[in-house]
């Protein structure tokens, strides 16, 4: 089953999008999944099972589920036009560490997309750990969700968006 969302948030704006996310239906196996569609983001397992057919395609993306690891894509990051991380539930925070690893440890610079249970109140943190595109849950108003990117102007810690913690970035006042 391929899910396409007409609008997504990308580079701080609502924008049209024509990528589809392949999700395995009941009975599909990674080996048998149909990957012939254009511009699809396939599950990691499908990539791993069908690497021979898929490598060389320029309109290919891959997505990691929250129980998968950024390191599973070691050495292959340049094969994909987009990498997505799935949030099965918004309270499952593993995707944040996956994104952090991809950006900070593995040096991924391409598009990093949050898919699944993606909601306004998590976008700020998602952006901080390295996501630059977001597919808000279909029942939510995407223009409302966009506002979530601007919740804070001050951040204490370093992450993928900011290599230096606040105490190294600014002169802080003393007692």
């Amino acid at each position: 089953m391929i899910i396409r969302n007409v609008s997504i948030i990308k580079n701080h704006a609502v924008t049209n999008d024509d990528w589809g996310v392949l999700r395995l239906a009941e009975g599909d196996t990674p080996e048998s999944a149909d990957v012939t569609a254009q511009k699809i983001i396939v599950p990691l397992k499908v990539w791993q099972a069908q690497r021979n057919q898929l490598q060389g395609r320029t309109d290919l993306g891959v997505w990691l589920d929250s129980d998968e690891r950024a390191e599973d894509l070691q050495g292959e990051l340049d094969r994909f036009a987009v990498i997505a991380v799935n949030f099965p539930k918004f309270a499952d925070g593993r995707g944040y560490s996956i994104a952090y690893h991809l950006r900070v440890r593995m040096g991924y610079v391409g598009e990093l997309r949050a898919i699944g249970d993606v909601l306004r109140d998590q976008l700020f943190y998602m952006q901080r750990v390295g996501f630059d595109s977001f597919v808000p849950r279909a029942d939510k108003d995407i223009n409302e969700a966009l506002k979530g990117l601007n919740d804070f102007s001050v951040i204490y810690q370093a992450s993928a968006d900011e290599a230096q913690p606040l105490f190294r970035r600014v002169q802080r006042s003393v007692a």
Partner: protein
Amino acid sequence: MYRYDQFDHQLASERVAQFGDQVRRRLSGELSEDEFRILRLQNGLYHQVHAYMLRAAVPYGLASANQLRKFAQIARKFDRGYAHFTTRQNIQYNWIKLPDTPEILAELASVELHANQTSGSCLRSITSDEFAGVSPDEIVDPRPYAEILRQWTTFHPEFAYLPRKFKIAISGAEEDRAATGVHDIGLNAVKNAQGEVGFRVLVGGGLGRTPVIGSVIAEFVPWQHVITYLESIVRVYNEYGRRDNAYKARIKILVKALGIEEFRRQVEADWQFTKDGPCTVTRQELDRVAVFFDAPAYQQQPASNASVTALQCDNKAFSNWMRRNVKRHKVTGYAIVLLSLKQVGVAPGDVSAEQLDAIADLADRFSFGEVRVTHMQNLVLADVKQSDLIALWQVATAQGLATPNIGLLTDVICCPGSDFCNLANARSIPLAKAIAQRFDDFDYLHDIGDIELNISGCINACGHHHVGHIGILGVDKNGEDRYQVSIGGAQGKAINLGKVIGSSFSAAEIPEVIASLLKVYVRERIEGERFIDTLQRLGIQPFKEYVYRTDTAIAMGLADDAAECVPVQQGTPYNNPHYSRRF
């Protein structure tokens, strides 16, 4: 204490706006309760039995007089004129209306306070030693590190949705007054042979359903690396902690499953990427923060005060108070004073708005305008001149804050229980009250001496029953409140988990069970032994045997030896309806 700069203020006000908007969207229906619940919990807002409960942070237990006045004002305006201090040094309001919460947060922010991460599956507010900076046994003042870590944990983008809550405690003294062994991460500040400061790091401690004492993951992490090292621990936990079962989701379960060696290996492997990187704490930042915790302007004082000594001879109440509620200060002529929030008839940790204002005045008058909250749910005035003790005691007595029971049987740790909490199996506050009434003779209490009685209304162990010398756990048996008793637990450096003595008791039986335990202690103790010492020497068997000697002895209120203890209260106080000012 730490004061906000422009950045802290800006962040605090942005947080107020963010949460206000989340509340607005909940009230308009844009946010479902499932979506909102996790957001409000990260702001310390629970939906409890009667109303919303808001838990505001008292960062590492330190508050100014003005902050206390703000707590009082909030109690009057938005609650029923009282508040409750918790075992994690925070403050709770029990009768909050959801639409009021943004205004309350704005009020808190106006005095540099917040409710960030006081609940939820995230990095929780950090707790520390209530005697930091004033205790003679201190090696390193933990407060600057606690503040640096407070900022690191605040809205950390990667760790807002952990498998479960994550609690950090930090202490820097010989004695561990921050219960670091029962936290997800416990930090003990130490000095190495070269005199450099670092942290002995414990991981995977916790109470709750599966009580575990933390394992040492690192003997010495230099202070510069405290952020990067902790970040690696939390990252490994975020990635590998169980998320399929909330009861097995704490880091202690992961540490047990992997073993401490393998867990350490994974943390060290992650740490290699960040060690010595930009998140390394700079000397400049440590110095900047440490200045806020410089010692106040102590005056030269004589070591003792003649009036205090004289009144101790003349006045038993004052003498009892001096013995129990006044502790030695590192500076000659000063004392540490504990204000007891364990008055008979009042829920442990509860404080009225009037008392909060009075405490603020006491702090301004006698203790450089600062107060600390203890994990035993009492308050501390940390820098009191010996010559001010009498005046302070008089005001504290008038305010019901001078009960001379610190460290005694009636200085119980107690969770709110099923009167307030949705999770609880049984009531705990009325039980604490029944015990306080049963043992209301100070001569007897002082004779029994140091003893820790901890009561939890359910397995989540908010009342720390596992580490009480006597621990009481509420259980629900066929709809009846029952209580399991354990003995031999301890906190501090000698931390230990208690053992259950046998089958559970009814509420009415519990005071008599405690009386039996104490009777064995009084019979068997050797001069100078505390209850826990006698218990450790003899083991639990003699205590257990005596408690269960006959069923009827218990049921009859120990008719055979009741005369030797305090008279048994007539009737069953437990069955009285809600007793406190809460209702």
